[in-house]
């Protein structure tokens, strides 16, 4: 049944969120710490394990795949409900801070992507200044 897949997905999300919330409380932080990421790990585990075959194969799988395919439309809806007007009203300071943070972070992607690959020596971080 399709709903088995949907239910598995729901249980993963709820469990992940509970753990993320508990981590937040334990660390005394006002945020959910990695709830979605933990939920994803549960789903990855379930879809790679034989124990959950009944929930992750055949028709049940299409209950999960449907929501995976709805991802982009949901993200479009998410974009449409952002507070874009406030972002434009923040003035030059907000604009500079946001743009500079993104530029520097973009520049670091290739640097950090090399970590764990054998062929590159530990990269120096001295080039990252002055961006943006």
């Amino acid at each position: 049944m399709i709903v088995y897949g949907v239910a598995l997905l729901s249980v993963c999300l709820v469990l992940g969120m509970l753990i993320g919330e508990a981590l937040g409380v334990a660390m005394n932080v006002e945020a959910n710490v990695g709830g979605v990421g933990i939920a994803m790990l549960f789903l990855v585990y379930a879809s790679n394990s034989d124990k959950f075959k009944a929930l992750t194969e055949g028709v049940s799988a299409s209950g999960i795949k449907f929501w995976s395919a709805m991802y982009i439309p949901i993200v479009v809806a998410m974009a449409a409900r952002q507070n874009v007007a406030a972002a434009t009203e923040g003035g030059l300071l907000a604009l500079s801070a946001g743009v500079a943070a993104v530029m520097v972070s973009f520049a670091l992607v290739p640097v950090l992507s090399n970590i764990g690959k054998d062929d590159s020596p530990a990269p120096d971080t001295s080039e990252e200044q002055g961006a943006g």
Partner: protein
Amino acid sequence: MDIIETVFVRNNLVVAFAVVGAVMWVSYFLADKLTAGRIHGSAIAIALGLLAAYWGGTVSGGSRGVADVTLLGGIGLMGGGMMRDFAIVATAFGVHISELKKAGIAGVISIFAGVIVSFIVGAAVAVMFGYTDPTAITTIGAGAVTYIVGPVTGEAIGASDAVITLSVAAGLVKSILVMIGTPLIAKRIGLDNPQSAMVFGGLMGTTSGVAAGLAATDPKLVPYGAMTATFYTGLGCLLGPSVLFFIVSAMF
């Protein structure tokens, strides 16, 4: 006209499905005809969504973009945190554990590097704009981390409302820029495999930005980027009002 409003409001989520579906169709049509597929249809759809959000925010004066327009209220539910997280988790279906392990360490390092680097950049900009109060500098730096870390930090260390608003704006600018900029810069920063996607998610951290940016670049990369990005805001909320604030206080 009353009839339309009644039906649209009562079935707001269903209306949202229809509207977003139409936007997707138009976007993929434009991507195909105008750009010959060079720009991804979802990138155009996200850009249209942001434009609509600007319009909605200006018209209604609310903070939830187009979702504050009465007839389109369902967009708020469809694009809200619950549905977003549900769909993000679903993208992890079929991900191989081996891919995650390969980028494990780089992913963890990128989350720490992302929070600290964004904070330093944001704080430096605040100083350049003449702020000398450590509370304000920390809050604006935290805003450059994400628009959630900014107000959480600001409220914890007692920043003024004006500064907190600025920090949210800085975070929003970051989030929107990641949505729009990622597909444009993906090739140049080597963002074409699961490993770099995990590093990317950890460095950028804004869940909305990463979610939309990767969707517009290559939907296959979404689960990897989203996985690391969801730890970022938590770490930011942890470091912002504590270690980072202490360091800034010691310097100013």
